[in-house]
């Protein structure tokens, strides 16, 4: 039955792409269409995961000659299909309303369609050519979406860096895949990688895959494009790029490294863990320094991708040392977190989109007090913030808890390096979680709470009902997956079994709801009971407070320790909120320069504080390359302006040297 589903998915894809022509300005139609499309994809993936069947594959005489285009749906693909289509379903739904706020529909709609379709197809592709084809198509369409607001200078720059990094990644993947394909003379995933290869070659392939997938997922130091490109797109697209497309990259990495490579080397997992750990902490620190909501969210994507990769790295390490159960646990955590992140990152981006369309402001310093004008957005955004800060009882915490538990498995690892590395990665994880919490205190507190800092945020009004509905749906998922993590664990079952050869949480018919608790060794977390208890306690408190306290209250002007200040500019700003952390981490990470400019006492003016942050990775890794290319092209440019005679000299010298080679070498 899944075969039909797969076929349906493909044919509907083609049918759907063919709507590009209709996508003139009729955005509601297109977004409804996308809703249906991704809804169908959702159905397919769910039915596949639940029915737990073996993989289904079909092939067409398209694409690469003599190889043809192969498509395959298996557990891994279908789980990521779930992530993709969940995200696109909600975003398209949001788009139905959001579309009316955006201009130049014709620049977004066709590419939106292609973007959704190509993401699905990347997951289904089962040969190197179609995989890279749709991979690159995905980058291309998202680039076009980024360029949709093409008048802005920084958009052009963002798009430029984005597409360059994307094609760099594609080349890396192409390199990796052709190295895998070379011995087994076939580009089809089923035949690839079955022949065993020596460690060096495998390591090269691994590094290339890490480069390719990492540059799309935004692992540090390949992240530079991400915080520029994601915010530039329309918000529901940023949501897709940040929440979903990065997961496609994760999929690609897992597919290549765990499936196409016959065996893994020991040091790979160490490399992954180090990079991922750095990404988590540095990503969130970058985010803390940002005051543009969407850019901040983009930086958080880097952090969360880091968390996912920590899980993957752990799983690989355990797998190498034969601890299959622990490997399964780590992989469960990673995939669970991937799903969670796609949910709450979508939610937060949609929220920021709502804010932007209400106030057309992305700078937090100009916002504030929105909780009064936009109650629904505020509430859902709060849920999202709590979830992304990995706080109980929401879903973000569950996956990080699982990750912590799998970190606790590490002492059984025989290698000493791992023994010491993994706990410190755990410390990094904790640090990043805490920093994320403070970052979202900043975001929420400055944006929604306090007093309005600008006219727009004073007069802002709640966004349209489609968007609100979409955000509520995601918030609901955050809560549900927090309370009933088993739902996701159950879906993850076949996937994890496919990758890690076993499944940590025993699957049985009744394990769907009972026991609700996740038990690792003898450590348990039971979201459901926790929420129950919280409810009971809260109820008790409400009753007793009502009973023993005076319920009269009045509104007063703020007290503020005796000297309140009327002007909203005297509130704490995002910048000042981040100041202590900047002071602690800034110097060695951003080489921060802080300067306070005071006016002379006899001529009082407002004092100014200037803060300079340097993105050191950009300055020391990317800038030199750009400079070098520029310098070289400057240097050799004279070759355009030579006289004919000098060109003749060139020809002459070439001829003579070639003849010389013939004379003296051969």
């Amino acid at each position: 039955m899944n075969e039909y589903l797969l076929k349906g998915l493909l044919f509907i894809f083609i049918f759907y792409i063919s709507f590009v022509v209709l996508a003139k300005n009729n955005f509601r139609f297109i977004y409804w269409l996308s809703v249906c499309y991704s809804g169908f994809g959702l159905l397919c993936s769910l039915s596949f995961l639940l029915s737990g069947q073996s993989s289904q594959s079909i092939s067409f005489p398209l694409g690469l000659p003599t190889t043809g285009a192969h498509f395959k749906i298996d557990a891994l693909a279908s789980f990521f299909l779930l992530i993709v289509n969940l995200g696109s379903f909600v975003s398209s739904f949001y788009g139905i309303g959001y579309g009316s706020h955006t201009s130049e529909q014709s620049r977004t709609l066709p590419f939106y369609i292609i973007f959704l379709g190509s993401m699905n197809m990347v997951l289904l592709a089962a040969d190197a050519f179609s995989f890279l084809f749709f991979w690159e198509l995905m980058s291309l369409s998202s680039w076009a979406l980024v360029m949709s607001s093409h008048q802005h200078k920084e958009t052009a720059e963002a798009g430029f860096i984005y597409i360059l990094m994307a094609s760099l990644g594609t080349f890396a993947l192409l390199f990796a895949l052709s190295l895998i394909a070379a011995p087994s003379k076939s580009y089809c995933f089923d035949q690839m990688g079955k022949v065993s290869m020596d460690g060096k070659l495998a390591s090269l392939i691994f590094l290339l895959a890490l480069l390719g997938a990492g540059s799309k997922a935004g692992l540090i130091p390949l992240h530079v494009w991400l915080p520029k490109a994601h915010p530039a797109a329309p918000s529901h697209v940023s949501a897709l790029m940040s929440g979903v497309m990065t997961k496609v990259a994760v999929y690609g990495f897992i597919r290549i490294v765990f499936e196409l490579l016959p065996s893994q080397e020991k040091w790979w997992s160490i490399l992954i863990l180090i990079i991922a750990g750095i990404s988590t902490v540095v990503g969130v620190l970058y985010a803390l320094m940002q005051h543009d909501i969407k850019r901040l969210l983009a930086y958080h994507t880097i952090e969360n991708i880091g968390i996912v990769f920590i899980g993957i790295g752990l799983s690989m390490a355990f797998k190498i040392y034969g601890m299959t159960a622990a490997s399964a646990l780590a992989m469960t955590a990673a995939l669970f977190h991937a799903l969670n992140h796609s949910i709450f990152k979508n939610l937060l981006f949609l929220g920021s989109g709502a804010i932007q369309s209400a106030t057309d402001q992305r700078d937090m310093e100009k916002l504030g007090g929105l909780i009064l004008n936009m109650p629904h957005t505020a509430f859902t955004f709060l849920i999202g913030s709590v979830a992304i800060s990995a706080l109980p009882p929401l879903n973000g915490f569950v996956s990080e808890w699982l990750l912590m538990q799998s970190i606790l498995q590490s002492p059984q690892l025989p290698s000493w390096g791992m023994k010491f590395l993994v706990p410190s990665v755990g410390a990094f994880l904790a640090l990043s979680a805490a920093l994320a919490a403070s970052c979202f205190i900043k975001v929420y507190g400055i944006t929604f709470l306090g007093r309005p800092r600008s006219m727009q945020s004073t007069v802002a009004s709640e966004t349209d009902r489609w968007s609100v509905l979409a955000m509520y749906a995601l918030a609901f998922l955050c809560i549900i997956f927090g309370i009933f993590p088993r739902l996701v664990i159950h879906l993850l079952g076949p996937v994890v079994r496919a990758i890690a050869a076993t499944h940590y949480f025993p699957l049985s018919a009744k394990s769907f709801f009972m026991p609700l608790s996740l038990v690792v060794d003898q450590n348990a977390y039971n979201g459901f009971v926790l929420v129950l208890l919280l409810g009971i306690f809260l109820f008790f408190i409400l009753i007793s407070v009502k009973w023993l306290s005076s319920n009269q209250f009045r509104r007063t002007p703020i007290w503020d320790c005796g000297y309140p200040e009327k002007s909203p500019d005297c509130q704490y700003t995002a910048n000042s909120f981040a100041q202590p952390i900047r002071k602690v981490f800034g110097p060695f990470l951003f080489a921060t320069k802080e300067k306070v400019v005071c006016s002379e006492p006899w001529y009082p003016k407002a004092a100014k504080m200037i803060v300079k942050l340097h993105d050191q990775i950009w300055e020391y890794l990317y800038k030199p390359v750009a400079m070098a290319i520029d310098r070289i092209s400057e240097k050799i440019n004279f070759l355009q302006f030579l006289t004919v005679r000098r060109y003749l000299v060139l020809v002459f010298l070439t001829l003579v040297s070639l003849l010389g080679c013939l004379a003296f070498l051969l």
Partner: protein
Amino acid sequence: MNHNLYFDITHMLAGSMLLVSFVLLYQDRMFSLLNVYTVHALVLVAAAAWQGFVQQAPHLYATAVIALVFKAIAIPLTLRWLIVKLAIHREIEKVVGSGISVIAGFFLTALSITVMMKASGGTDPMTREDLSFALAVVLIGLLMMAGRRNAISQVVGFMSMENGLILAAVGAKGMPLVVEISVAFSVLVALIVIGIFLFRIRERFDVVDIRGLEKSGGER
């Protein structure tokens, strides 16, 4: 007559042609350059005719005639006429001095000989010698084009290159006529086109000098 004599004469002709191209390298006045070029062409004519005689190949006589008419007579005359008409000043501006260019010419000759000697083991020594000289002439012609600033002298260099080619062609036994014709044809066309060019250029610039041509230098 014995085979040695054939061989010696062929060798002599080819060698003298090489010598003449050295002389070409050495010139620094327009008219003398054209004179020397005429000699060059005449030597070629002789070589072609001799080959025709040796190979009993009548079409080589034709080649000789073509060469005589076009290379030895038509082209030098036209060029003289051009020089007079366009009032090109008679000095040849060189990039590298005669001495150095002559030394370079020696090196090129050595190179071509080494290349050809280690090559063509199968072919008879006669064509091999011929080829090595021809190659040397071609290379020297190229050197001349690369080493002179005036359009005219570059054209002459180009022509001497063509001569070298034909020398190679006539040296090769049984080379079909189609090739010579094509060479003559191409040279003719080349001359015409150059003429057109010089005229057009004359319309716009004062001197026929590539520097004048290239003051705009491509990119704008």
